């Protein structure tokens, strides 16, 4: 299974600013001058080898949208944030190569940043497509219709040409989609959110975003440890620092890199991917969080196996 990130930003899409671009340019040009490299391809190769990701790339700014690609059969997508727009265009091309025109969407919840891409999701406008929207909430359809109601959007939901179905999932009741077993877990978030665990041929992905974890709630933590147990990859909402998450931003419904590592270490997870990045952070800040998280894992690993840690970026692919 391949996990493909189309949107990784929390709460609100953001764009790389001119200031950010200039900073990257300055860093790259400084490197080139100091290294005396004049060949562009060689310079890019050297930069990729030596420079920070924040210099050579950007983490991107689309809100949450993550694809789980099995390489064949129906498509599987978690959340429909603004990243659903480029995803939709890509799906049209891949379907043209023979894949079934069926998308299975699993919504963590219906807050705006997780559904705002749907009105721009090209398959929704094609009568040959079927879009099945799964979730734990009763108001999935209501929310999607609401955001396309006047005066918020010019195209009403009923004008969408695709066949659109809604599937309510229950925690504790496994669900099968395209040969993948899907488990759902209720999470602490305003209006609730749901995490998903996808298991296929012994490989396991957990998608858990917009989930607040209270350090003092040992029972809740144990439940997540069990949900994460042995996962090959956990995509985790690490939007805030621990201090913010448990003080000024308590009840805002998000979590931290510290708790992410603690839970994943206890659950013997192999790979943690930090997700739902704070929109106020630039690329350098996100990279700093990654570096610090890697260090925190080193500090607290003990005798356990290493937990691999990465930070999600728009366009990133991870094989599970």
């Amino acid at each position, binding site marked *: 299974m391949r996990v493909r990130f189309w949107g990784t930003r929390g709460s609100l899409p953001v764009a790389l600013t001119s200031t950010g671009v200039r900073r990257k340019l300055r860093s790259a040009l400084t490197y080139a001058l100091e290294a005396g490299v004049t060949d562009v391809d060689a310079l890019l190769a050297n930069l990729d080898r030596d420079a920070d990701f924040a210099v050579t790339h950007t983490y991107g700014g689309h809100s949450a949208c993550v694809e789980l690609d099995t390489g064949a059969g129906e498509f599987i997508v978690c959340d429909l944030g603004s990243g659903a727009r480029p995803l939709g265009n890509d799906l049209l091309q891949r379907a043209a190569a023979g894949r079934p025109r069926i998308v299975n969407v699993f919504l963590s919840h219906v807050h705006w940043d997780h559904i705002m891409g749907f009105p721009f999701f090209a398959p929704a406008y094609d009568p040959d497509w079927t879009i099945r929207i799964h979730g734990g909430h009763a108001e999935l359809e209501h929310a999607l219709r609401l955001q396309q109601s006047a005066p918020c959007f010019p195209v009403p939901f009923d004008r969408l040409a695709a066949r659109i179905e809604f599937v309510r999932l229950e925690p504790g009741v496994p669900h099968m989609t395209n040969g993948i077993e899907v488990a759902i877990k209720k999470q602490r978030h305003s209006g609730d959110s749901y995490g998903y665990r996808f298991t296929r041929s012994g490989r396991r992905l957990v998608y858990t975003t917009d989930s607040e974890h209270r350090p003092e709630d*040992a029972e809740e933590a144990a439940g997540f440890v069990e949900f994460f147990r042995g996962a090959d990859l956990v995509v985790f909402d690490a939007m805030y*620092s621990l201090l913010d998450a*448990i003080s000024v931003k308590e009840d805002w419904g998000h979590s931290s890199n510290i*708790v992410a590592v603690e839970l994943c270490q206890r659950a013997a997870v192999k790979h943690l991917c930090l997700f739902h990045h704070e929109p106020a952070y630039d690329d350098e800040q996100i990279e700093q969080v990654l570096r610090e*998280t890697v260090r925190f894992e080193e*500090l607290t690993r003990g005798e356990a196996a290493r937990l691999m840690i990465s930070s999600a970026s728009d366009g990133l692919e991870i094989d599970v």
Partner: protein
Amino acid sequence: MPPSGEVSSSAIAPVGRIGAGLLPASRYADVVVVAPQDRLDHANGDAFSLALEPYLADCRPGGIHLVLDLSALRYVSSAGLRCFMLAAKQAKAQGGEVVIAGMQAVVREIFEISRFTLLFKVFDDVSAALEALSPRAAQVHRGR
């Protein structure tokens, strides 16, 4: 045994057990120094907060300053950090202040990564904390 505010040249040691460890506390004039031991996590966080409460209650103007001496603390989890956060919050609400002293390297890094260094004044050791908080306490500490 909440401090009375009297000047004392003798340390008040140890005052209570936290889980399998101790919470030694020492008093220097108007400063109380408490020193959590070994680990602070979900297993002993509540006991730590309970043991800290008498000192916190007096951490206010006219009462005491409170120093968390972390020189004997090897590890602190998110649950343990939350105990520190709640202590700082209560002290601030009362007009008092809790400061940190003597962190080991690992705990200092955990504080930095979790951004808890933004919450507390951090001193290299207890002496430096006392110098900053109270000349009287620093004097008592030097002469102990």
